């Protein structure tokens, strides 16, 4: 009830906290723990939420940028992620770091985005890729930008779960265990999906089988 009243009248929350008249985001220095900010958000303090957004926006934007097509979509998706965080803040139990909980929501939202995009595509035939990576020498000749563009095009043609897992493990640098925590899949499932995704990507890029260093990592 107390939270409900504070939610309806944020000003009451501020009076109770003795912060009325000075509601700036800058009130919360870096020293204030995430958990304390979460408590304040639950009490209806918007500035505390703004401080949390300020802390985590870069991390969320960097991850989300791997799944979107332009900066407008990135802005929209990142806002959606933080709105979900705000709406579900009561379900954060504090048994894991807040940043980890937030990233789980971010990954889940990006996965939903990939799935909805695939539904929109429907049965439109995917055109053949106009390139083939015959070996490491060809990749070596590519600039970082070219490599990124090539990978973006190829990843866009994978299944949502394949793209998600490759992005998390290969581009974001998460371990299989961390990726399992973020996606909600089991670690074994993550490894299997990662292996299959690599195979699908190789096929798409025209990469021939090389040695036996392929597989679970």
């Amino acid at each position, binding site marked *: 009830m107390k939270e409900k009243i504070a939610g*309806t*009248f944020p000003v009451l929350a501020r009076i109770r906290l003795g912060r009325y008249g000075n509601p700036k*985001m800058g009130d919360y220095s870096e020293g204030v723990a995430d958990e304390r900010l979460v408590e304040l958000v639950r009490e209806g303090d*918007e500035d505390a939420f*703004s401080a949390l*957004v*300020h802390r985590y*926006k*870069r991390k969320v*934007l*960097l991850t989300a*940028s*791997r799944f979107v097509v332009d*900066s407008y979509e*990135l*802005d929209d998706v*990142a*806002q959606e992620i*933080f*709105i979900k965080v*705000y709406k579900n803040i009561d379900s954060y139990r504090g048994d894991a770091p807040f940043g980890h909980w937030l990233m789980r929501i971010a990954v889940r939202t990006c996965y939903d985005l990939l799935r909805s995009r695939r539904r929109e595509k429907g049965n439109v035939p995917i055109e053949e890729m106009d390139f083939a*990576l015959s*070996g*490491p020498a*060809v*990749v*070596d000749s*590519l*600039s*970082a*930008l070219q*490599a*990124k563009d*090539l*990978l973006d095009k190829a990843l866009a043609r994978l299944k949502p779960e394949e793209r998600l897992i490759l992005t998390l493990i*290969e*581009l974001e*640098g998460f371990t299989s265990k961390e990726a399992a925590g973020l996606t909600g899949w089991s670690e074994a499932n993550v490894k299997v999906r990662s292996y299959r995704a*690599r195979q699908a*990507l*190789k096929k798409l*890029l025209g*990469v021939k089988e*090389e*040695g036996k*260093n*392929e597989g679970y990592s």
Partner: protein
Amino acid sequence: MKDTLDILFDKARSMEPDVSRTEFGFETRLMARMRSERERNVPVFEWMWRLVPVFTAITISLGTWYYYVPDNTVDFGTAVIAQMSDPVAAIYMNGE
């Protein structure tokens, strides 16, 4: 030895996405969106609470008006007739 895919990933990873444009003013845009969404979904009970000051002001104004106006005539017709001379009132009453 790294395979072709690993080299490709290494190169792509070395290019951190540029999110500075989206990062700029992100909190402001987010909070504005949240406020507008909240305004659209205001529950009825919250509107009732918001209207309390308005109704209080109306009640106080009406109370003051009734207190200070000497003749507390409520009937409009009576108030009009009271201002008229008798012949004019008779014409008015007869509808002529």
